């Protein structure tokens, strides 16, 4: 029988770790997640069922350590030429079981990319935070505190706004930054994260990108509080909530880099975040393929399995086709971020715009396909016991985050058509 591994990946791009990572994570997913995931929705607040699976993956198997340098207890992925493709495989396998776990895990990479990745390793911060992730068997989460109450993902709209709408402020007081502000919605907030990268401004209202700052704040720093998680349409394993910073003080060297540079490497987070989103999409869709195969093989119409009906097969073909395309595009995106020597820096406007294009392509196609697949199942489509409605809900959420489609469209239009006033 055909399996998910029959879908194409550009084999030239795969990391030497690919097979190993894929295998252990798939085993973990089969054993620790898939048997329990139908109960995840009701576990959204407490994570009683979800937490042990995270612990296994991140703490015990050590996936939360991969970005750190080897000498600090990590796996050195931040130094490799396979950051994108290795992460893609990892996220894809996790998301096949549960894309909320995919994003919760993936976002741990977000702040760490800033400090662990060539060519901009911040060794001092690596040393500072490596123990938090590398010297424990517990799952440790990080979060990127970006979005603010008014304007949503506007902050990502850097071409237009130059950071001028950021309300969270950082003031240097002696050797310390004093941070004040209110963030909401970040993945791994709602009480999950132990470490934040906080997007803030050193000069409120400024459009000078030198005033754009990313500062690390351990979650237990006095003055930093997290609200309860929000209830959402899906993605129970990903907690989102409010974070308040009230006169939070951290050492001055907790700023990722410094004026100008924080902004540049923040763009790298955007391109990698978009790549990660594609991996959540293809991972989920691979599992939909498996469930769909089961459905169309076992459910009968007029004495034949449903897949033998030509018109149904047409929908199956479109689904397989689009999953092929999404996956190839996802790996191409990962490759472009793996190899700045060939495709330019990860933070170039070109790579950011293209990653956004691929992401919103993947999401549009996923939403369209999942809608059609739900429909093939008739009323079973809405029943939790076929799992497909879960992926349907989750993938819709992937489509909406990172500023949603419209912000992506504007960035793509600006790059390819050099629009100047959008």
């Amino acid at each position, binding site marked *: 029988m055909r399996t998910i591994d029959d879908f194409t990946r550009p084999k030239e791009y795969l990391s030497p770790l690919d097979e190993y990572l894929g295998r252990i994570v798939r085993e973990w997913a089969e054993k620790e997640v898939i048997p329990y995931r139908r109960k995840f*929705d009701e576990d959204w607040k407490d994570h009683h069922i979800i937490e042990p699976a995270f612990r296994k993956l991140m703490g015990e198997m050590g996936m939360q350590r991969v970005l750190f340098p080897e000498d600090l207890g990590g796996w050195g992925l931040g130094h490799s030429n396979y950051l994108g493709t290795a992460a893609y495989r990892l996220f894809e396998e996790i998301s096949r079981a549960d894309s909320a776990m995919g994003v919760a895990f993936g976002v741990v990479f977000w702040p760490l990319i800033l400090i662990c990745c060539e060519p901009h390793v911040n060794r001092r911060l690596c040393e500072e935070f490596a123990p938090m992730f590398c010297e424990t068997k517990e799952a440790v989460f990080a979060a990127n505190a970006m*979005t603010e109450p*008014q*304007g*949503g993902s*506007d902050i990502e*709209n850097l071409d*237009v*706004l130059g950071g*001028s*709408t950021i309300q969270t402020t950082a003031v240097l007081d002696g050797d310390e930054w004093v941070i004040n502000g209110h963030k909401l*919605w970040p993945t791994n907030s709602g009480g999950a994260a132990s470490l934040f990268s906080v997007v803030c401004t050193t000069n409120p209202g400024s459009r000078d990108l030198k005033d754009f700052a990313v500062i690390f704040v351990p979650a237990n720093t006095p003055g930093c509080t997290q609200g309860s998680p*929000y*209830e*959402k*349409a*899906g*993605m129970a394993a990903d907690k*989102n909530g409010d974070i308040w910073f009230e006169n939070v003080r951290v050492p001055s060297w907790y700023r990722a880099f410094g004026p100008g540079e924080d902004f540049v490497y923040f763009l790298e987070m955007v391109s990698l975040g978009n790549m990660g989103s594609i991996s959540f999409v293809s991972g989920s869709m691979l599992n939909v393929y498996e469930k769909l195969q089961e459905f169309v093989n*076992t*459910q*009968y*119409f*007029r*004495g034949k*399995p*449903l897949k033998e*009906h030509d*018109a*149904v097969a*047409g*929908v199956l073909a479109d689904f397989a086709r689009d999953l092929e395309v999404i996956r190839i595009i996802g790996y191409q995106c990962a490759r472009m971020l793996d190899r700045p020597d060939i495709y330019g820096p990860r933070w170039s406007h070109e790579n950011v715009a293209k990653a956004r294009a691929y992401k919103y392509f993947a999401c549009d196609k996923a*939403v369209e396909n999942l*809608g*059609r697949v*739900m*429909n*093939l*199942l*008739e*009323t*079973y*489509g*809405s*029943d*939790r*016991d076929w799992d497909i*409605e879960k992926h*349907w*809900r989750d993938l*819709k*959420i992937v489509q*909406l*985050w990172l*500023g*949603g*489609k*419209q912000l992506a*469209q*504007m960035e793509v239009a600006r790059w390819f058509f050099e629009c100047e006033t959008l």
Partner: protein
Amino acid sequence: MNYQELFPFPQERCEEADISLAHTVHQWGEAELASKRLELKEDYSRLIEPAMRKLLVDIGLQKILWPESFGGSAQNAPEIALPLTLALEQIGWADVGIGYVFASTFALCTTFAMEGNVQEKLVQAYAPLFCQSGQPVIGALILPSLKGKDSQDGPSFRGKALQARANQDKQAWTIEGRNMRPFNSGSNAQLFGVLCGIDGESDPAFFVVSGDAAGIKRKDVFLKTGLAASLNSDVDFDKVIVPPENLVFRGLQPFRAMLSWLYLGISATTVGSLFAAYDILKEWGDNRVIKGRGQVFKENPLTAALMAEIAMDILTSRMLLYQLAQMLAQPEVYGGAGEEKVFIPALCLATYITHAGEKAINSTMELMASAGYAKEWQLERYWRDVKTLQIHLGNRELNKMEIARYFYDCKNLEGGI
């Protein structure tokens, strides 16, 4: 202007009283549900039962089909299609699940209570339940379904498995079915409408069965993605015995007539939920500020363009909905609800409307980003509900076989509804 004025419908064909009923239902929705949105999120099941009682019993929507002698309002002529549509739009606006449960129950009852179909014994048996019990009454449909290989030995209808069999013994009928999955409300329906296979006969028969009949076993309520007001569960019929008059009809045409009414109900409920999505989006568009330049959301051309698409979907869906209502309301012009020339357009229109609904709400969610999927904003509930309504029309590809057969005179296409 509100949506009632913005989205044209053939007001010249509607009675004052019907528009007034819709207004009453809207007020009900506002008082019982819309104004309690946050409570609803926390404690849906506590609020939903009293809301249904107010609507069905106090306002009396469940009385419409029944004779005045039982306390009903005797609106069982086809013209009921227009007031039904007006009311279901408002129910759908307030709660899609209630709309769906009501529409299904209504469709079930048309089979023996609609003018032209009236079966006196059944009317006498069930009218008191609807008009005098003081309880909201829910009817569940058990229709042909895709099933596993094992089912292929059992009876089928147009390619799908019939979930039950009936056999006549002396006068009474005995109905048997295992692990049947009703279309709605398996756990709490007071009556069932079941399409059954009969040994040795090619046409199936449709039975009405009281929910308290001996031998009915209901399983646990299962989890599903939407339509929370429909508490569904698998059901066993273990030698359920029903009197001969409970065999309501045999064959294709009356089955299709019931479906035409169900399609109208699903379509009207969908359009109602689009009004709710419109209201939510309107509020968002009026208040959200983007681009950090004080640009109100709705004033951005790109988001406005998508908002326009959504409005167009609502506009066309509503117009087509009323076209369907008018077809069902005028059998003398268009034919009866079970005739192919009405049933097929009804299927086409319901297919269009439920897909336009999916598209419109999908786009609305896009525009609202995180607020689109946060339960707090309620939109995601309509999204889950509308999709679930849609799949109750059945597998679209198989349905298209019905449609192609009609329009292109195909002879050998398999399957369908």
